[in-house]
């Protein structure tokens, strides 16, 4: 395992530096290549693919999961993982549609964000201040949040009263769905936060080498807590957007989103052991999955085969996306 690393690093400084940048380049570019190949493939296999209508659908279908992937991304960079995103999204979704009878869209947004932030804070607290494993904490949250969804909806979808509720989720500006615009905006915001601000650098430091970060005065716990709260906010937003798109809060909303989000993030070049990854990568990763799913439907692939295809494609994509990447070093 270490061998690769050593041979890389054993090179005298200049080339090593180049290699360093080179690797970073590869990490973000391989996914992009995969995406391009997929798009070309799709365009060739199905003439419907490039129709403006379908492209619009594609954006609509990717936006929500894309925002969730961004939430997952910041958690992963901090060295954690959040498998509760799907359930939390579900809860935010039904509550935003249901509380106050979904009378006002503005209120609904607040409810959704509030729900996400609150549950995120719980995750963050247990991870940062009780030192529990992110995976298991969010696993508990996964069951808890989904349970609350059923407890609240009793299995019946919640329809908001406000007719304007579906506006955000369905409107388009100059042919571009508002959802897509929001997704891009969030991505840009996230990129700025992580790359440019002190907080962002702290997140990378904590994710990469917690002891070093702690020893040099970085507020590790506070940073981690903030990370999970931010993730929660984004997931909550996603929940509202989904409700607004569907026009109702369905109890099954968000099921298995966590897996897609994590896969997208990793294929986008992030390292689950933390401290590494680019927002752009997460976006590309999401797009890869969006195109795959869309394509399988366009090609009318037998429902019995779709999962197998998806699985094989994930493995392939990861194998490709991680070419030239040194094996994940859990050692540090």
């Amino acid at each position, binding site marked *: 395992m*270490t*061998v690769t*690393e*050593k*041979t*890389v*690093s*054993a*090179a*005298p*400084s*200049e080339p*090593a*530096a180049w*290699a*360093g*940048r080179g690797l970073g380049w590869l990490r973000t570019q391989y996914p992009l290549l995969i995406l391009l190949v997929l798009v070309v493939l799709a365009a060739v296999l199905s003439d419907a693919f490039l129709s403006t209508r379908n492209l619009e659908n594609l954006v609509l279908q990717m936006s929500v999961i894309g925002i969730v992937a961004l939430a997952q991304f910041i958690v992963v960079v901090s060295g954690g993982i959040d498998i509760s995103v799907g359930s939390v999204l579900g809860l935010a979704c039904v509550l935003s549609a249901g509380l106050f009878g979904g009378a006002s869209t503005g209120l609904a947004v607040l409810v959704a964000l509030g729900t996400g932030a609150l549950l995120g804070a719980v995750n963050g607290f247990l991870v940062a201040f009780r030192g529990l494993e992110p995976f298991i904490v969010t696993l508990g949250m996964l069951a808890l949040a989904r349970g609350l969804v059923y407890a609240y909806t009793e299995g019946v979808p919640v329809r908001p009263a406000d007719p304007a509720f579906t506006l955000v989720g369905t409107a388009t500006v100059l042919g571009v769905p508002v959802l897509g615009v929001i997704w891009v905006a969030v991505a840009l915001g996230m990129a700025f936060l992580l790359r*440019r*601000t*002190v*907080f*962002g*650098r*702290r997140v*990378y*430091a904590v*994710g*990469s*080498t917690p*002891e*070093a*970060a*702690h*020893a*040099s*005065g*970085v*507020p590790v716990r*506070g*940073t981690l807590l*903030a990370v999970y709260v931010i993730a929660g906010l984004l997931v909550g937003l996603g929940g509202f957007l989904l409700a607004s798109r569907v026009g109702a809060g369905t109890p099954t909303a968000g099921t298995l989103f966590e897996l897609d989000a994590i896969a997208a993030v990793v294929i986008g070049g992030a390292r689950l052991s933390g*401290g*590494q990854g680019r927002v752009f990568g997460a976006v590309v990763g999401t797009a890869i999955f969006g195109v795959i799913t869309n394509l399988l439907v366009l090609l009318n692939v037998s429902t019995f085969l779709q999962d197998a295809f998806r699985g094989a494609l994930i493995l392939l994509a990861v194998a490709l996306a991680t070419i030239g990447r040194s094996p994940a070093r859990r*050692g*540090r």
Partner: protein
Amino acid sequence: MGTMNRVVFSARGVGKSYPGVQALSGVDLDGRAGEVLAICGANGAGKSTFARLLAGQEPPSAGEIRVAGHPEPVADPAEADRAGILLMHQEPLVVDDFTVAENVWLYRLRSGRDIRPWSLARRGDDDATRQALRDVGLGDVAPTRLAGSLAPGQRQMLALARARVTPHQVLILDETTASTTEEHFADVQEMVAAEKAAGTAVVFVSHRMPEVFALSDRIAVLRGGRLVDVLRTAGTDAAEVTALMIGEGVRALERPPAHRAEGRAPALAVRGLHAGSATDVSFDVRGGEVVGIYGLVGSGRSSVARSVSGQQQPRAGTVEVGGRAVTMRSPGAALRHGVVHLTEDRRREGFVGEFTNAENLSLVTLPRLATAGVVRRRDERSRVTELIERFQVKGGPETPTRALSGGNQQKVCLAKWLAADPDVIVLDEPTKGIDVGARLNIYEIIHGLSQQDRAVLVVTSEAEEALLLCHRVLVLRDGRLVAEFDAAEASTEDLMRAALGGAAALGSDAAQGGDAA
């Protein structure tokens, strides 16, 4: 002179106990501005613990430490940072995924009133960064390089570079110079001089007496976690200090008995080796011979050591063990050929973090302690206790190695390899962070090995150690083998000159040495 006496930090009755260990007890110690306070003590005496407490990395379990101009006692790292206390850890703490530059300016991420999370992260301007790096002898390392790719020695220096840009009034160097050469020590010396002038209180921890006496104004001696005495450097000598540390005088180190390896076939033969930063290195090590590799940090010593022992694949060149050319794809393969390698990178490669001493000590030899893959517990236990005795490891078989002091960890790493009784032994900085007493003990063990006709290759940063420990010393400069000395005749000056590229003449007789080898 007022400033000289201004007390910057004062520890009162400070104690620290870990589960089952009283690491430190009742220490009263002051640090004064513009003064270097050296802390000496055997391995496990409590030096690093004191350093960590002073820097607020851990809270003391008794007493308190106050810092000038800071109301309440220092509690957490961030606060210590704000109080202007800067700790250079024994194990350099570097953010591996950050660039060298980002690591230099790391303090700008710390929490504090002056730094808001949402404010833009300012990176130091390149000139300042390069200057800081140059000050610690890393001038040739690009600021954009990933810190994770640096060699241990370089990581140590990178951590030190922070001191050049981070505002502070107390600077703690915990064995920062443990694996640096005399030449690098010069950089440190300059830095410390500058710090003194700036009125910083410097705390210097080292096992190297010459360095201690070269730098310090006062020497505090710890023993078994208690403060034995504080001496004025001017009024004492190495003998007295070591006597206080160990509790008895230390015999002078003797040269190894002349080896009987003449005319014997080489146990390890290296030809035209290109690896890491080493280029075209050729040499022999005969059975019963101890050969040293001396050179500056980054000169390629470790690269050579790593690539003759399967830790790293050489780009070119051949390695013969016992006369047979071998390619060692992995450390495991090397072990099967009877070649072992003590890493210089204790934190990453030295020992298994979650393991107890027993488990770490038997890891290498486990297959031999097992029948049909099942470990013979009794054998393992007896073997382990025997090793702990022989290498004077402070800590029982069940103690997690992680919980040992730096030097004791080093002993564990060394012991686990020698337990495999190999034919060729490659040791990279074997006495890194080991106290004077134990160091002698390890020298004796190594000499014992050569008596048993083992071939030993030692990478060292101390010219003195090279001469005391080895029969022959090879000197590397910029990855090339530039000189070869018979330790009996050569002086430390010869070695240093060769390493720095002082005299061209040495280059030629190195060539002869190369041919002879």
